[in-house]
């Protein structure tokens, strides 16, 4: 991108919530906010799956850990009201610890075993969140925790409406800027990571673990690091999610969420930051677009045949299959990966 394009792009990103708010209303700005959170999650998973090549099917567990960390420490549930700048890093740290706990026993496993174990881990976390309301009520069970303190950074009350520069800045718009800032930081972080010594070691492990090890790469520590870093981003994103939503329950952290985040990474282009972002944006906006499918079916067929939720999952499923068959590198892949997948491979 040229400098002019970059500035234009930044302007678009900065004015997007205001324009959306005026044109489509608060609801759509909220969707943008969620899209940003999903971008963060997808970039986090991208470190694990895209860079290090470890298929993680339980990624949403880290999101859940971050979210519950914030929910427990700043809500009336335990009557604790820690500020966001304390809960967010703590949530990230706890999520990272969970990442290492999950990573440590699974390091020796090959891709498909790892997928199953991570999937099981995600389910275990959800089962615990669902059941840890007895004998001591920690997570409040399936009802979840509500009345979580809203997004506040010191004196900045991001959930309130401000009047500034003759405009009304509503809560969802303010949250957008906070999330955008977080996403930008994550993008820079990912980008620097990708080209660092660690990033190169990860791609070596991804391509051929045995060769990487014989080149003196400490595969165990680096895989753990990938898990921990991916989990950290999941935790941060979860903390922001809890504060933004004001409510968390185990229902938000099902396997389908994990699969959806994986879809974002895979469909967008594994290992490529821009691709992953595009994947995350498309897949988080798509459900909203599919809401129109219900009325459309009513008009055409007289009744709703496929409801929006089913349609979304059905489309995801079919998209995953078609994508792997037709364009395994994703919508917008890194050039190296495209070359790799379209050259004739020598199978082992």
């Amino acid at each position, binding site marked *: 991108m040229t400098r002019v394009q970059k500035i234009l792009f930044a302007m678009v990103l900065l004015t997007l919530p205001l324009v959306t708010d005026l044109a489509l209303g608060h609801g759509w700005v909220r969707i943008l906010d969620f899209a940003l959170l999903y971008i963060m999650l997808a970039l986090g998973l991208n470190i694990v799956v895209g860079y290090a090549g470890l298929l993680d099917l339980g990624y949403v567990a880290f999101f859940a850990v971050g979210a519950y960390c914030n929910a427990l420490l700043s809500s009336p549930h335990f009557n604790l009201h820690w500020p966001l700048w304390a809960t967010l890093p703590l949530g990230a740290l706890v999520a990272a610890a969970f990442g290492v706990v999950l990573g440590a026993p699974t390091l020796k496993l090959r891709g498909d075993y790892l997928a199953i174990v991570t999937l099981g881990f995600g389910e275990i976390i959800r*089962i615990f969140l669902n059941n840890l309301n007895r004998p001591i009520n920690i997570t409040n069970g399936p009802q979840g925790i509500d009345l979580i303190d809203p997004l506040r950074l010191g004196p900045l009350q991001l959930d309130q409406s401000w009047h500034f520069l003759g405009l009304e800045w509503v809560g969802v718009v303010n949250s957008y800027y906070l999330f955008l800032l977080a996403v930008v930081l994550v993008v820079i972080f990912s980008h620097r990571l990708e080209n660092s010594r660690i990033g190169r070691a990860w791609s070596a492990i991804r391509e051929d673990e045995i060769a990487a090890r014989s080149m003196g790469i400490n595969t165990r520590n680096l895989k753990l690091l990938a898990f921990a870093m991916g989990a950290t981003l999941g935790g941060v994103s979860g903390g922001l999610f809890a504060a933004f939503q004001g409510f968390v329950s185990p229902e938000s952290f099902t396997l389908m969420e994990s699969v959806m985040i994986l879809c974002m990474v895979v469909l967008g282009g594994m290992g490529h930051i821009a691709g992953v972002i595009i994947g995350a944006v498309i897949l988080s906006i798509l459900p909203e677009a599919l809401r129109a499918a219900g009325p459309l079916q009513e008009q055409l067929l007289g009744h709703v045949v496929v409801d929006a939720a089913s349609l979304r999952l059905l489309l995801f499923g079919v998209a995953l299959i078609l994508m792997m068959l037709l364009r395994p590198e994703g919508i917008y892949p890194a050039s190296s990966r495209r070359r790799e997948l379209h050259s004739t491979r020598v199978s082992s």
Partner: protein
Amino acid sequence: MDIFLQQLVNGLTLGSIYALVALGYTMVYGILELINFAHGEVVMVGALVAISTINGLLGLGWPAPLAVVAAVLLSMLVCMSLGFIIERVAYRPLRNAPRLAPLITAIGISMALQQVASLIWGRSYISFPSVVNVQSWAWGEVIVTSLQFSIVVISLLIMAGLMGLVQKTSLGRAMRATAQNPAAAQLMGVNIHRIIALTFIIGSALAAVAGVMVAAYYGVGHYTMGFMLGLKAFTAAVLGGIGNLPGAMVGGLVLGIVESLGAGYIGDITGGVLGSNYKDVFAFLVLIAVLIFHPTGLMGSRSREKV
């Protein structure tokens, strides 16, 4: 002691269902080194097809036993074609692709099948028609129902049949050859694509039977029932040593018993802190423990990664 025996009986019943499903995973893994993620969904389809068929046939005035047999046969047929299609669409084109690719298509197939099933059968639980006349025998406090008895016996018969097929027939020999070395098998005139397709078909037939059993045992079917069952069956396959047929059977039985005993005793052991709602955790704990301490499973042989 009576509780212990009762849980043992329940565990054996569950375990033989797990074993049937686990055989499907392990056969595919043995040949393709691929986890067929959609296998649990095949079980689910088998169960739901059988429930619908039984209801339909009873409506037509068929006698109950005949309706059940016809339903099992039909659901086997449906699942076998499903297995064939899954292999054709999702796995065969990706034979030489990176390992991640077939895994992701498998997840896609699994999602798509679940949603299609929810469109056909709805999102609510469907009860299994009460056609099976369940008798129960009691020894002291231990109760064994005729349903449990027949589940275990039929499973054992099927497993024996499968072992016979794999060990004694030329198809079985071809399957073993393909599992050992696909390239060499091909050079010896084995049509490995046909063998792989047949492996999926046989596995799916077993899945159909398991689906009917699990629906009859719990009395309900649901479009998401395949997920947890598939996961547990996979655990059973790993526990027994993946790729190893007797291993899958032993693994299934052991897992069923561990789960039943665990769910039965966890309340007592932890003083009521954890209840039987944690029963699904056991399978995962077993899985993780096996993978850490003994990744080749109970009966698996150590295999070296080819460089």
